[in-house]
């Protein structure tokens, strides 16, 4: 892992091919994730309500909700760590890097936690559009981060950004 985040230009040059292949797979993962949610009807408020809203008397929400958050947090965690760490050694403005990662992380948390709103407050409106919007923002920010890493990784020596 240290090999991939070395700021040495020669090392980054050697690391570029595997990093680019990894980033291509990351794009496939993100596109596949969007397609999977669409196929399950989770990109419409009605579909999302049908899948994840708790039934009357289901105090802690459906088990499917906890399983989805369990798997989703794992995926988000590894994507944010790997893409974020690669961006650190890319010649990218620190503000842009921080904005992309912070947006992706915040949107991912809203995406994962929004379905718990009707568990805590049964009948609360608006959680489904909130989750769909947050998922869209998280995917857009992660795709942008991947594209940026693809375009700039190893291209020139990393600037000192503190």
């Amino acid at each position, binding site marked *: 892992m240290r090999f991939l985040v*070395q*700021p040495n230009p020669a090392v980054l040059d050697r690391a570029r091919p595997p990093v680019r292949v990894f980033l291509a797979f990351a794009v496939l993962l993100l596109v596949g994730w969007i397609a999977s949610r669409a196929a399950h009807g989770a990109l419409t408020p009605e579909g999302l309500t049908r899948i994840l809203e708790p039934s009357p008397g289901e105090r*802690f929400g459906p088990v499917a909700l906890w399983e989805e*958050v369990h798997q989703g947090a794992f995926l*988000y965690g590894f994507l944010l760590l790997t893409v*974020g760490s690669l961006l650190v050694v890319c010649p990218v403005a620190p503000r842009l890097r921080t904005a992309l990662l912070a947006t992706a992380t915040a949107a991912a948390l809203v995406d994962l936690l929004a379905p718990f709103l009707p568990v805590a407050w049964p009948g609360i409106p608006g959680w489904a559009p909130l989750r769909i919007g947050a998922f869209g923002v998280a995917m857009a920010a992660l795709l942008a981060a991947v594209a940026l890493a693809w375009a700039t990784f190893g291209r020139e020596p990393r600037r000192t950004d503190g």
Partner: protein
Amino acid sequence: MVDPRMSRFSLPVAAFATMVALVMATGAVLFARKIGFDGGHVRAFYFGSEAGFAPPRSLAGLLEVAVPHLLAVPLLILVTLHLVAFALGVRRRPFSLLAGITWTCAAAGIGAGFAIRFAWPWLAPLKVAAFVGFQATMLAWLLLLVAAIVPHPGREPRPGFTGTADAPPRAVR
């Protein structure tokens, strides 16, 4: 202050730690809801129960859960331990001891389901102990990781680090 060699990685590491905390928390809830924390519930989960109309777990059903976990759990432990070593330069003996407990609990937790179902049902408490041990040690690793990226006034980089301000450090040998 945060170690300058670590500060550039603070955001991705913080995002990772947050998501791992969510994975662990939801894992605990799923364990409590699906399996339970006492031997009787664990045995009922694996052998089925007439009262709950639940059939015994099949080998295919156990593998369906175990196989993804055999990739995800070691990957999660490897990366978390790597980051802690990378960030804190913790001493080798306590690091190895805690890491050994984590790996043992992870292996026992995944393997215990098969052992309970097909070898010895009375291993049910082992499943619970392994799960609790895994959760507890992962919580400790996450706290160490957070300690590495939270600014501490006056904290200097620990002696023994390799690398420079521009290069990531390695664990102390």
